[in-house]
């Protein structure tokens, strides 16, 4: 919100919004997900403003999977096309839509970046994040080894196969710790929940934070 206000953009929060339906869709409940997606379309159909989300995988769901739920010929198809065409992940919105990479932020810390799978491979957003990070003053960005390997979250996967998820998470934590940073940045609620939990379990003081928190910062410690 701070960032948007700094850019003179008025954010609107529609109180009826809940979820895009991805957790159900990815668990195989396609028909159930469609019910939630219908609500989503109804909620966001009330105006024609850009829809911005801080989570890559949610945007990937809307942009890449909604058309499967509302194919040509269904009554919601046109609304679906309209909504998917104006849904953006936050960094995508800033760099590609607003066309800004320097937000006047300052973050005097050593950080590394974990590109979340759905942001990187689903939406193809990667350079945008580095452009935004380059615009942050006093920030020291350390490359993350095996950065593009999944952190082991995977939504329903993490609870269906916790033992496999743990192995993947531990690899990610090991790589993060090897960079000796204070913060690891990611743009997805799921990855952040998994990585921050993993860091806490490992007793590490490294914090997992969202890119937005970095961009909103203007100097001192968080």
């Amino acid at each position, binding site marked *: 919100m701070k960032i948007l206000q700094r850019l003179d953009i008025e954010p609107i*929060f529609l*109180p*009826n*919004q*809940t*979820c895009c*339906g991805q*957790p*159900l*869709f*990815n*668990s*195989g*409940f*396609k*028909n*159930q*997900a469609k*019910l*939630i997606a219908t*609500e989503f379309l109804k*909620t966001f159909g009330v105006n024609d403003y850009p829809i911005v989300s801080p989570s890559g995988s949610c945007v990937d769901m809307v942009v890449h999977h909604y058309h499967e739920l509302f194919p040509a010929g269904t009554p919601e198809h046109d609304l679906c096309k309209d909504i998917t065409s104006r849904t953006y992940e936050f960094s995508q919105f800033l760099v590609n839509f607003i066309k800004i990479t320097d937000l006047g932020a300052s973050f005097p810390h050593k950080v590394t970046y974990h590109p979340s*799978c*759905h942001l990187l*491979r*689903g939406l193809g957003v990667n350079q945008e994040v580095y452009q935004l990070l380059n615009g942050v003053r006093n920030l020291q960005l350390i490359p993350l080894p095996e950065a*593009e*390997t*999944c952190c*082991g*979250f*995977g*939504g*329903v*996967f*993490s*609870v*269906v*196969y*916790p*033992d*496999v*998820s*743990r*192995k*993947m*998470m531990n*690899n990610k934590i090991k790589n993060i710790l090897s960079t000796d940073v204070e913060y690891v940045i990611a743009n997805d609620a799921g990855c952040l*929940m*998994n990585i*921050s*939990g*993993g860091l*806490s*379990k490992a007793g590490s003081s490294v914090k997992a934070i969202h890119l937005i928190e970095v961009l909103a910062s203007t100097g001192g410690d968080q």
Partner: protein
Amino acid sequence: MTDRTPNYIHFSDYTKHIPENIPVAVQQATNRFLGNREARVAELPNWQELRQVAHEIRLHTLENLDFYLTQLERQVVQNGGVVHWAANSAEARAIVIDIATQHQVKTVVKAKSMASEEIGLNEGLSEAGIQSFETDLGEFIIQLAGVGPSHIIVPAVHLKKEEIANLFANKLGVEAPPEPVQLTAIARNILREKFLKAEMGISGANFLIAETGTLVIVTNEGNGRMCTTMPDIHVAVVGIDKVVPDWDSLTVLLKLLARSATGQKLSTYTSFISATSRGSSEGGPKEFHLILLDNGRTRILHDPLGRETLKCIRCGCCLNVCPVYKNVGGYAYGWFISGPIGAIFTPQILGTHIAQELPFASSLCGACVDVCPVKVPITEILLHLRQRVVEGNQHVKPSAPLWIRSAGKIGTLAFQIPWLYQLGTRLLPFLTAPLNKRGWIPSLPPPFNRWTRVRPFPAFSARFRKWWSK
């Protein structure tokens, strides 16, 4: 008939206790392949175009499979071969055993073939009293160990050289130092004698060229050539999905195959077998039999999305990049084919009632989709199969337990009705307050403990809406 076709695949149980050395050995090999692959791909500026063309060739062939299979059959027969059609594993095994019995075959040498693993051919031959010897080094090793392949192209990838040396010492009664060159020499000595003795050679094929009836075999060890030329009878067991229209199509696929698999430009040997021996002056087998295996493939063809599974050219690259496969190895997938391609192939061939756990054995990270040389939409098909498991379709009943299916419906209500959702977000912080330890919930009751067993859950807070309304 005993074969390795499972009655149920317990991915969950298996992955609870993965021997520690498996991910170590698997990652060592797969990372080497990936590094080589990256270098080879960088050399070809038109890599993405090649993938697109390959995708189109494969899909076109599958959509016209009846035409190309008929053309292939005609050409093979014209070249002097015999074509057999096998609807399933049992039929395919019976055809091989029949040919062997007719010719009083006692010993068979085998080139590496995933189709023969699929049908459990070694077990079938052994029950019929026919000795069969795997001649690919990796297959030789796993045959000694009495297990199936744990990777499509490197079947013994899960074993370290020390384990192989122990296996050789125990099973072959030889002194075996843990050195690859010496271990290979031991295998080579044993296999030489089998090649000379065998009356029949069995192979698979990487491709079948419809326009000329040619069998294409890609190997690195030369054993494929020996199996298909030394014995008097050559039998090839090949899935019907392996057909390509013509040599032009083949060149595209060959460019992609070895580069994606091991990071080689071409494998050491690429063999083209078009005809049987034309007389005493020419070497080679006197008889050639091609067994075309369906085993559920035509059923997959009916499903427009599932069909794309059959585009696969078995390079194994999706295994090499998969963070799940690299941490659990191939045996977790319960059948001869593992990794992401196994997770979509097996449930479609064996049915979701047997393999319902496999479509969920992926974090949907999509790394496999990015590298697949023929663009199999693996994550889309995983989702497609997950739906088949929990919701079923017109042919298949849902196989997921009732409580999971009910949970999905309850979850939907919570997200579908805004006031219920908002009530939930207000109640959860209070309900979970007793569990909250400095912003973390270290443990939750079942089934949520499946998360907290691995890492704590962030404590619920409902500040955003409150903050916004101010």
